[in-house]
């Protein structure tokens, strides 16, 4: 009887875990944006699954190496990162922007978007509420490289990001990618 109850409990837990994983994947715009970039530009991102856990630790190490106090925007452990390196990002900028906005603007607010057509550079900053904090989704696409970063930030850091979106976006991307350079 006891064994049967334990078994049921394990099965229920497994089912719950599986369900929550599926639900998370469904509502995960980070993954859909990465997929969208891959399909639109016919490129492949580099999988760095350990980054989510390691990134914040690395930022601290990175700051120490630099000998200064690096400004932290993202909450510990909240960073998701996908990078695309040495690939060709040829495609209609406006078409991509439209596609990205169409897919995200129902659940995200497009805070700042910049395009440089000649340099084929695009930056997108989307924001959405996440309890008493905010989720920020940053998409940076250049001629040969791209980065997608999703991070949770406090209200204070979101305000800092709004004050100077360009610098804030750079800092968050740097936080997420610094581990890659070490």
């Amino acid at each position: 009887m006891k064994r049967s109850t334990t078994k049921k409990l394990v099965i229920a837990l497994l089912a719950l875990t599986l369900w929550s994983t599926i639900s998370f994947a469904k509502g995960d715009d980070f993954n859909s944006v990465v997929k969208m970039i891959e399909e639109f530009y016919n490129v492949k991102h580099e999988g760095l699954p350990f980054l989510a856990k390691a990134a914040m630790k690395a930022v601290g190490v990175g700051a120490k190496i630099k000998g200064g106090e690096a400004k932290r925007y993202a909450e510990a452990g909240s960073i998701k990162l996908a990078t695309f390196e040495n690939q060709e990002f040829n495609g209609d900028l406006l078409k991509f922007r439209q596609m990205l906005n169409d897919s995200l603007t129902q659940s995200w607010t497009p805070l700042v978007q910049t395009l440089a057509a000649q340099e084929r550079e695009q930056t997108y900053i989307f924001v959405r509420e996440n309890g008493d904090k905010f989720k920020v989704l940053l998409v940076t696409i250049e001629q040969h490289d791209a980065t997608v970063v999703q991070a949770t930030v406090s209200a204070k850091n979101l305000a800092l990001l709004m004050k100077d979106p360009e610098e804030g976006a750079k800092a968050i991307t740097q936080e997420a990618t610094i581990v890659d350079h070490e």
Partner: protein
Amino acid sequence: MKLLFHTISRTALIWAVLVVMTTITTYAQDPRLRLAHLDYLATKASETVDVNIDERLIQLAAKVFNDKDDDEAQIKKLVIGLKGIYVKSFEFENENDYSSADVDSIRSQLREPAWSRLLNVTSKREGIVEVYVALNGAEVVGLAVLSAEPKELTVVNIIGPVDLEKLAKLEGNLGIPDLGIHSNKHKTKNEQ
């Protein structure tokens, strides 16, 4: 029959007046400009910037501006009550990469009675800067800046109680570009 015609005409007239009044009120209450049609310029522009900060985000930013810092405290005071800040800016490599029709498409939305022009600076070398306010009665409910330089087109649209002085202080913050509104105010006499 005549009486019936007269009644119908009068009713139609009243409805027409009501529709016009409603439209005017609606415009006055929602001074958000439609800017999406300018997006095609992004392919010609060397740089395009789009800023969308809605009321929730503005109030959030206002909360965390530091009261002890004079500049931040001043900005905090300015942004309280604002309902949106929207900026669209294009920088071009060459002159005439955007057309007067593009400028007119914005200007046509900034017509009276919903909008009043507050400032107009025209300089052959530097282009035009026009500042408009949207009024709902005596209350300012929005502001628009149209800056059309030979190689740059910028539209700033602020929703909420804002005036020229506030705008000048907000320049360089919350995605609002430095439009030199203060200096333009003085330039008006010389260059207009």
